[in-house]
Structure formats: C-alpha cells, structure tokens
C-alpha cells in the first residue's frame, strides 16, 4: 500500500511542471519512505530519512527555487526515446530480481556473512543495546569517519561555490514571511523542545534509535525554523556563519583526534579500548566522542549550506 503511494508520487513528480509542487511532493515521498523504513524494522534509518529527506532537503530545494524560478519549461524533445531506454533498463533489472531471495528470507546470503556476528557479539563487545550505533561507530568506524569527511567536504564545496553572502535580507529584523504573531509564539515554544530532543537523540543513541547524524540534523532544523520565522539576520546573530566553518572542522577533528589518540597509545587507529582500562568502557567513551564529532559536523554543515542558499542575493 505504501509502496503504491510511493509509485504514484513518483509518477506525479514526472508529470507536474510546477517545481514548487514537485519539491513538496518529494518531501511527502521522503516521509512515506520513512514510514516504510519503520515498517521494515529500520528505526534509525526512518528517523534519519524523516529529518533529512522530509525536512532539510525540502527547505534547501525551496531556497534554490527562490533563486532559479518556479516553473519548468515543457521539454523540447519527445518522451519516446527516454521511455524506451528506461523500459529496457527496468526490464533487465526486474529480470535480475527474479533470482533474488524473497523478502524477509532469513537464509538469504545478506543475512549470513557478518550480520550474525554483529547481532550476537555486538551488545557484548561494544556494550550497547543499539546494534546500529555499535556497527556505525565502532565496527565500521573507518567508514563513518570517511562519511563525516564527505559531509565536511560537501559543505566546503557549497561554501566555495556560493559563500555566505550579506545582503538586505540578512539584516536583523527582516523576515521573508512578515510578522506572523501565531507562528512566532508557536515557534518560540517548539524550538527548546526540538533542541532538547536533539540532545536526547545525540546522547541516547547508544541505547535507543538515534545518534550523531540524526541529532545534528534535528539541531540544525531548529535553527532553520528560527531563521524562517524570525528572519535570516536574527538567526545569524544566534548562530554566526563564521562559527559554523570552525564547528564543522572541530567535529571532524574530534573524530580524527580519537583515532590519533589510540594510535599514540599504541593501539590501531580508532580502537576505542585505548580510551579506558576496561575495553567495554573504552568503547562507550569512544562511541560517545565519535558521535559527538559527527553531530557537530552534521549540524554546522547543514546550517552553513542553508545559510549559503537562503542568504544568496537574487541575480537579476
């Protein structure tokens, strides 16, 4: 049922020429996907998709639309050729799935290789109930370090391309939507809760769903919300853009620092047992620090990207 919804939204995205509607549809699509992930037991992923896909991506796309225009032109060439290409590729892929194991098959090759080890040994070795966090920050700490670095690099790339501009719309007290009393009051009440929730997600990620990636995005959305309602200038007074670059670097530095520390103590890179006498305690410290680094980087980069896109002066 959900999947049918997803398919109809995808079709609508193809048909509609109003890009504003397309962006809204893609947010709905992301939210549906998050629900689907929930259904497939991937709570952490659902969480991330809801915060990122339905929240941040939509805002970034809308900021871009402000600069590039709302309407799409009708394509000049016919849909026949792309349709043929797509049909052939799709048919080949569907033919490929015919040999795939059925959904939920416990004997499928995916479930046989490293997953049993993570599920059985993870809670013992790393000492935390959430296996996703254990795999993310401990077993595959190298991957996550790389990914944090990719996010950092992407943030740098956006800042290189756009920079964070000053302009009339970034003066304090100016808002894009005008003085909306109801929104102001509601947002003032909601923002502390969002921040508190972000902190909970950050530090409770070892035990329940959550972690640095989600917390960073949730924290950033609180500031984005403030920005949207109270104006770009006020938001920049609260979280100055010049801090964000440094915070982004600081997060990566914390992550890398943990790795280097364990190197200096004579253990392999990112071996958290170096952090404490008891290996399981060391894992706890390590995961906490690493997730903190991830959270700081993700928060500052997402907010910096938002500033860069939303504060850009419109070209005439």
């Amino acid at each position: 049922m959900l999947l049918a919804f997803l398919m109809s939204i995808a079709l609508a995205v193809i048909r509609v020429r109003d890009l504003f509607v397309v962006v809204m549809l893609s947010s709905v699509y992301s939210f549906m996907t998050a629900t689907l992930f929930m259904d497939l037991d991937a709570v952490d992923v659902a969480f991330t998709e809801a915060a990122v896909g339905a929240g941040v991506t939509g805002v970034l796309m809308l900021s871009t639309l402000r600069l590039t225009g709302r309407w799409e032109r009708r394509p000049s060439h016919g849909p026949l050729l792309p349709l043929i290409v797509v049909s052939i590729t799709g048919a080949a892929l569907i033919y490929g799935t015919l040999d795939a194991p059925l959904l939920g098959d416990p004997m499928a090759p995916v479930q046989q290789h490293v997953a049993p080890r993570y599920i059985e040994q993870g809670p013992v070795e790393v000492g935390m109930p959430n296996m996703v966090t254990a795999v993310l920050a401990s077993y595959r700490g190298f991957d996550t370090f790389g990914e944090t670095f990719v996010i950092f690099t992407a943030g740098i790339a956006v800042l290189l391309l756009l920079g964070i501009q000053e302009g009339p719309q970034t003066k304090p007290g100016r808002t894009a939507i005008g003085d909306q009393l109801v929104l102001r009051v509601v947002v003032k009440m909601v923002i502390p809760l969002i921040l508190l929730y972000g902190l909970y997600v950050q530090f409770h990620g070892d035990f329940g769903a959550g972690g640095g990636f989600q917390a960073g995005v949730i924290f950033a959305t609180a500031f984005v919300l403030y920005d949207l309602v109270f104006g770009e200038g006020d938001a920049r007074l609260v979280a100055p853009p010049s801090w964000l670059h440094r915070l982004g670097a600081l997060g990566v530095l914390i992550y890398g620092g943990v790795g280097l520390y364990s190197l200096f103590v004579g253990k392999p890179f990112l071996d958290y047992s170096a952090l404490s006498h008891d290996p399981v305690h060391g894992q706890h410290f390590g995961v906490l620090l690493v997730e903190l680094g991830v959270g700081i980087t993700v928060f500052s980069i997402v907010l910096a990207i938002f500033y860069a896109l939303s504060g850009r002066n419109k070209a005439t």
Partner: protein
Amino acid sequence: MSDLPGLYNYWVTVFLMMAGFYVVISQGNLVKKLVGLSVFQTSVFIFYISMGKVAGGHAPILTEGVTVYSNPLPHVLILTAIVVGVATTAVGLALVVRIREAYGSVEEDDIQALDNAADTEPDGPADSAESPRP
C-alpha cells in the same frame, strides 16, 4: 508487515529507480533533474533496507525476549548514505544556482544554445553572460 510480499518490494524499487532515471534523462530543468536523482537515490535506500529485513524480526536494538533481529548492517550503510546524500544534493543545488547566475537559465536547452553560440563567435555572448564575482 505480517505477510511479506515476496519480490514485490524489489519490483517497486526498480519502478521508482526507473522513474527517477526517466526524470534525469528526459527533463531539461536542472532542479527537476536533482529531484529525480533523489528519487533514484531513495529507491536504492529502499532496496538495501528491504534486503536487511528478516521475517518476524525486530528492530536491531537489544530487547528482552527477542531473538530474531533484522540485519543492522544495511541500516548503518543507508543511515550515513542519507546524510551524505543531502550534502551532495546541496552541492548540486549550489552548482545550479551558479549556473543560473552565469547563464540566466536552468533549462538544459538554453544552456546548450548559449554554449554553442559562444563556441561559434569567440567574444560573443559568453562574456556578456559572465556573472559578476560575488
């Protein structure tokens, strides 16, 4: 989801992937192409998460009295991929904004036409379309 639908999930994944692919190759607007790309990307996410599902399994958080968990590994991969995805999409959007400023359009055909015109007459419209430095 008590009755698991066999291969249906994979087929929907393929459909969504092809829908995204179609948007990318057939439509001229660069913002729309990016939306198509993110639909494509999400279909890969759904594919991975579907693979990790175990019938009768629970979310991979250690709980009393639960013995069957879904595979945590695809969850980890996709969780990070989503956040990396938004970062890379943002780079794409930034490029689109710069293209808009340099060419005055985000339609592929216009950009191609301007490029062709600039190729035929070396000091023609290319200079006038140049954006002021920020």
